[in-house]
C-alpha cells in the first residue's frame, strides 16, 4: 500500500501543479529550475563564489525576503486599519490590546527597520566588491532607486499609527520641503516665481503642500501617505525589483573576478 505522502504526490492534482518529482538526480535538478515559476528567477548553475555567504552576505536576498514579509503582514494590517484621523490611532491601539494577531504590527515595524539596515548593508557589499563596475553600472542605479524607495516606504509608514511619535517625525521630516529652492515657500528663489506681482509659491502651493496635501500634517496627509505607503511605492518597488533581478542575470550573474 502506498503511504499518504506518495498517494498525494502521485495524484493528478499534485502532478498538474509540480511538473517534476522531487529532484534527486542531476537532470531533474536542472529541469526543476527551468520549469518552476518561482525558481526560474535563478540560473540553473552558478559559480560557487556567487553563493558564498562570506562574499554576498546574502543581503540582497534578505532584503527581498523582508520586502515579502512586509507585503504579507502589511496586507493583513490593512484589514484592521482605517486611515482616518478618527480611527487610525484607535485601530492600532486595538491591534495591540484586543486582536490576537497583534504581533503582526511588531513584525511589520521591526521588519521595516531591518529592511532599511539590510538594504544599506547590501549596497555596502556591492560597493566593497566593486560590483557596480561594468557591466553592472545600470543595476547599481536601479539599486539606488530601490534604496530611495525603501526609505520612502519606511517614512510614509511611520505616520500611519497617528501618535505623537508619528506626526512629529513626519512634521520634522517634511518641514525640509518648505525650504526647497524655488518650490518651497521659505526656500531661496521662491520670490522669483511670481505671476503679475502675485507670489506663485506660498504655503498653500509649495512643495510641502504637495507632499502633505495641506498646510500642516493632517487628515489629507494621512490619506496621501496611506496611498503612497500601501499602493504607489510598493508597486514602484516591485517593478524596479523585477528589473533588478532580471539585470543580475543578464549582466552575467553575481560578480566575480574575471
Amino acid at each position: 500500500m502506498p503511504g499518504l505522502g506518495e498517494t498525494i504526490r502521485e495524484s493528478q492534482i499534485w502532478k498538474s501543479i509540480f511538473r517534476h518529482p522531487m529532484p534527486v538526480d542531476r537532470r531533474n535538478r536542472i529541469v526543476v529550475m527551468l520549469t518552476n515559476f518561482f525558481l526560474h528567477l535563478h540560473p540553473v548553475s552558478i559559480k560557487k563564489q556567487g553563493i558564498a555567504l562570506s562574499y554576498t552576505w546574502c543581503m540582497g536576498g534578505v532584503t527581498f525576503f523582508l520586502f515579502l514579509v512586509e507585503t504579507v503582514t502589511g496586507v493583513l494590517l490593512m484589514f484592521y486599519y482605517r486611515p482616518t484621523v478618527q480611527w487610525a490611532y484607535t485601530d492600532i491601539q486595538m491591534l495591540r490590546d484586543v486582536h490576537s494577531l497583534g504581533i503582526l504590527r511588531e513584525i511589520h515595524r521591526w521588519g521595516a527597520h531591518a529592511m532599511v539596515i539590510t538594504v544599506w548593508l547590501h549596497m555596502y557589499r556591492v560597493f566593497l566588491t566593486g560590483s557596480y563596475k561594468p557591466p553592472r553600472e545600470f543595476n547599481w542605479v536601479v539599486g539606488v532607486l530601490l534604496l530611495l524607495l525603501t526609505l520612502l516606504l519606511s517614512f510614509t509608514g511611520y505616520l500611519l499609527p497617528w501618535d505623537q511619535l508619528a506626526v512629529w517625525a513626519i512634521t520634522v521630516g517634511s518641514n525640509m520641503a518648505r525650504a526647497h529652492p524655488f518650490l518651497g515657500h521659505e526656500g531661496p528663489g521662491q520670490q522669483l516665481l511670481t505671476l503679475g506681482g502675485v507670489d506663485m509659491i506660498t504655503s498653500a502651493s509649495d512643495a510641502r503642500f504637495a507632499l502633505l496635501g495641506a498646510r500642516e500634517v493632517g487628515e489629507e496627509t494621512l490619506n496621501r501617505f496611506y496611498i503612497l505607503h500601501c499602493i504607489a511605492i510598493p508597486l514602484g518597488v516591485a517593478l524596479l525589483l523585477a528589473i533588478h533581478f532580471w539585470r543580475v542575470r543578464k549582466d552575467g550573474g553575481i560578480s566575480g573576478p574575471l
Partner: protein
Amino acid sequence: MTHGLTDALFYEKVSSFLVWFYVVLAAMNGIAALYVWRTGQTKKWIGLPGGHGLGITNAVVWLLVAAAFAVCAALAGSGMSGNGAWMPSMPEAWKNFIDSNTGPVVYSLGTTVLLAALFVFRRFFTTPAVAWTILNLMLLFLGLSMTDRDFFEIVAKPDNVPIVMLILLLAFFTWLATYRAVINDDRMERGEPPLEKLDDEKVLVWPDLVYIELICMIALTAFLIFWAIALPAPLEEPANIAKTPNPSKAPWYFLGLQEMLVYFDPWMAGVVLPLLVVNGLMAIPYLDFNKQGNGYYTIKQRKFAYLTFQFGFLEIWITLIVLGTLLRGPNWNFFGPYEYWDAHKVEAADNINLSQIWWEKLLGSSLPMPPSGAGFLVQAGHILLREWLGFALTLGYFIVLPPVLALTVLKRYYQKMGLIRFMLMANLLLFMAALPIKMVLRWVFTLKYIIWIPEWFLNF
C-alpha cells in the same frame, strides 16, 4: 518609558534583560573556544614557567572570558531583587568623565581618528583574535552601561534598538570585508589570484543555493518573531499638533540630515545635499574608471574610491545618525551617553556670520543693509557688497578649485576622465567636503553663515 518606574522596578527590568545578554556573551565565547580547539587553531599565547611546554592557549582565554561573562550574568541577576548594587556597571567616575568630556567636537574628531586608525592598522585590527576582543569589549561596554537609567532610556527606546543592531552589523561586516581585502591584497601582491577566484567552479542552484535560501528564510522568520515578541512596538499618545515634543526627531535613518541642520539651513541640509547624495551614488559607476577590483574584496587596488565611499558612508552618514539619535536631546543640545536629558540645559549660541566678521569686527563699521522697500537692483547691490567675501570664497571653492585640482593633484584623473566627468566628480567631492569644512569653521570661529541673505532665504 522608564520614567514612571521606581529604581527597584527599573533594576528588575534591566536585570531580566542583562542576565540573558551575559548568558549569550558567555555562550558566544564558549563556542569560540570550542571552535578554535576543534579546528586545530589553538595557539599558545602565554607560556607557563617550568619548561614543560604548557601554556595558556587562545581556547583557554576564550573559555575564561566565557566564565567571566557567566559570573556577570549571575551578578546581573541580583538586580531582580530590585537592588542594583551588585550588578556589573560602569564606574560612576568613568561615566562622569565620559559625560563631561564629550561634545560634538570630541565626538566627531574621535570617530574620525578611530576610523582612520582602524584603516591604517587594518592588518592588526582584522586579526580574528583582535577583532573578537573588540567585539567583546563593545558588548561589554553596552552591558555595563545599561544599568545607567539615562543610557537605558535612550538606547532601549524601541525605535532606537535598530541603531544598536546597525552598529554591531556594520562592525561585523566591515571586519569581514576588510579581513578578506587584506588577504586578497597580499595574495595579489604575490601574483596569486584573489580568494574569490578559487571558488569559480560551477555548482547546481538546486540544491546548493535553494537550500541556503530556505534556511535563511526560516532563520530570519524566527528572528523576526522573537524580536516582535520581545520588544513591543511603540505607541505614544494620540497625535496632537498643538503639543510639540522636545526634541522632535525624524525617523532614525534621516537623523544624519537633521544633524546637518546644525550647520546648514534646511534648503541645503534637507533638499540640496540629500539630492546630491542620491545623484552622487548613482554617478559612482560612471565616475570610477578604475577597471581593477571588480568582483572581489580589495582595498589597495582602489584606494581612492574606497576611501571616498567610506568617508561618505561610515564617517559622515552613519556617524551623524548615531550622533543625532543617541546624543542629541531637547533643543537639539548635545548630551553625554549617561547624561539626563534636561530640557533647560542652555548652550551658548553666539554664532556669527562671515559678513559680520568682515564689516563689524575687522572694519568696525555696520553692515550695509538694503533700505526697506528698495527695488530689486538696489537690494541686490547692497547684498552683493555686504556678502562679497562669502561670495568670493564660495565661488572660488566651487568654480576655481576644480580646475586647479585638475591641473595639480588630480591631474591623472582629469586626463582619464575628460572635462565633464571630472567636473562632476570634483563638484560632488567638494559638496561632500563642505560639511566637515563648515563643522570645523563653526567650532573654531563660531561661524554661522558664509553667505547670509535672509532677504532671499539664501543662507549658506
